[in-house]
C-alpha cells in the first residue's frame, strides 16, 4: 500500500469494535460507485463546456449537466453516510463534498479514500483474527 501518507495507528478497544460494526465495506462501495460516476459526468460536462466555448456546437445536450446535478446529490448522501460511519472529522467531510465538483480531483480523492479505508479494514480484520 503506498498512499503517501503514514498509516494511522490501528484503532483499539471500543473504537475498533464500533468501526467493525459500522458496515464500512458496503458504505465504501456505495461511495466509490457514486464518486466514479460523479467524476465521469463532471468530466463530460467540462469537456462539453470547453467544446461549446471553442467550437460552438453542443455535443450531447443539456441533459448531461442536469444529470450531473442529481447524481451529485446522491453522491453527497453516500459521502455523509460513509463519513459518519468512519467517525471522520468535519474537514474530511468538506473535502469529500468539494471533491465532487472539481474535475479529476474526484478520482484522486476516491483513490486515496479507498486505500485508506481498505487499510483500516485490513487492520480491523487482523485484530479480529488475532493475527
Amino acid at each position, binding site marked *: 500500500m503506498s498512499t503517501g501518507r503514514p498509516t494511522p495507528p490501528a484503532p483499539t478497544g*471500543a*473504537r475498533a469494535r464500533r468501526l467493525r*460494526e459500522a458496515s464500512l465495506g458496503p458504505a465504501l462501495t456505495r461511495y466509490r460507485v457514486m464518486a466514479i460516476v460523479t467524476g465521469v459526468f463532471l468530466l463530460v460536462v467540462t469537456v462539453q463546456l470547453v467544446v461549446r466555448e471553442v467550437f*460552438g456546437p453542443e455535443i450531447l445536450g443539456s441533459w448531461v449537466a*442536469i444529470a450531473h446535478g442529481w447524481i451529485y446529490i446522491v453522491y453527497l448522501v453516500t459521502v455523509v453516510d460513509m463519513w459518519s460511519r468512519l*467517525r471522520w472529522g468535519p474537514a474530511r467531510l468538506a473535502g469529500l463534498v468539494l471533491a465532487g465538483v472539481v474535475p479529476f480531483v474526484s478520482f484522486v480523492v476516491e483513490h486515496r479514500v479507498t486505500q485508506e479505508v481498505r487499510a483500516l479494514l485490513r487492520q480491523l480484520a487482523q485484530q*479480529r483474527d488475532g493475527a
Partner: protein
Amino acid sequence: MPSRAPYRGGVRPTETRGPAGVVRTALRPRMLALLALALGLAVVFAELGSWQLGRARTGQQAPPERAVVPLQQVLAPQEALSAESVAGPVAVRGTWADVPQQLVVGRAADGSPGDGAWVLAAVEVPDADPAGLDPADLDPAAGDPAAGHPVAAPGDGGALLPVVLGWVPDADAAAGAPPAPTGAADLVGELAVSEDPRGLVGLPAGRLAAASSADLLNVWDGRVYAGYLVPDAPSQEALALSSRAPGARAVPPPERESGTNLQNVSYAFQWWVFAAFAVLMWLRVVHDVHRRALERAEDEAEERAAAQEPRATGGAADPERSDDPGGPADDRPAHDHPAHDHPAHDRPADDRPADRDPADRRAQEASR
C-alpha cells in the same frame, strides 16, 4: 443506530443517552452557531432555486398566447430576442429579399440532428411597420398574401429576417430547385432565437450547418435579425417549395426555449434539495457529536481500566502482555473497578485489544 451493549466500565458516562442528550447537544452554543450557518446556507440555496425558476419562466412571463404583433414592435434588427419576442406570433410584412436561398443541412424537420435540410429564405423588413399598428389587418390564419397591404419598396434600408420555408429530405435535390421567392411577403409565424454559429468551413455554397444569423451575415448582404421566423400557416412560398422539392414539409413551430427551461427548473429543484441538505446535515452533525461524546466516555472508561498498562497505540499487541499476562494485572487492584467481575478480561490478554470482553462480543453476535 445499532443498540449498544450495556455500559460496564465502572464509570458513568457524563453524556446523557437518549433524546434528552441529543437535545442538550443541539442547544450548545457551537451547535446553535452551526444551525445559524446551516439555515443561512439553506436560505441562500432556496433563493438561488427561486432565481433559477424565475429564469426558467422568463419565456412565459408575457401572456403565453399574446395577440399577433408586428415584428418591429417586439424586435429590432441585430438585437437579442426578448421574452416578449417569443411570447407569441409576429406578423412580418416586407419583400422577399434577393439573396441566395440557404440550406441548413443535417437536420430533421423539427430541427433535431438527422437527414434533410431546412430551406432558409429572407424577407427584407422595413425598420418601421409601414401599415401602422392595425390589429384588424393581422389575421394569423390568413395564408393569403393580400395585395392590398402597403409594402415597403425593396432596398429601403430594411433588415433581413431569415424565414424557414420548410424542410426537404434531400438537400441535393432541393439545391437545384427554382430560386427563392420574390415579391411582397406577408407572413405570420413564431420567432426563434438564432442558433449558435457553426461557420462555413467545409460547406459548399448555399449550405449552412446552423440556422445562425452570424453565419447568414457571411452570405447575405445587409443587416440580419438575430432570430428566424417559422411561419404558422403554410405560405404560398412554402407550398411552392413542396411542389418543386419532393417530400418537402412545413417545419413545426419552435419550442419556446423549452430546453433551457427544463434545465433551469431542474437546477431550481437541485438548489432546494441543497437547502434541505444543509439543514439535514446540521441534524446529522448534532447526532454525530452526541454519539461521539458517548463514545469518548466509553473510550475514557476503557483507558482508565487499562491505565496501568502501556497504551496499545500501534494496534500490535504489547509483547509484555502476551508473555506475562499476570504481570500488569498485578498492578491493577488499586484501580477502581467495583463492577468488574472479570479481571482477566480487563486488558487484552492476546492480540485482541479491540475486544475488551469476549463475553460482550458473543452477546452482540448472538443478538444479530
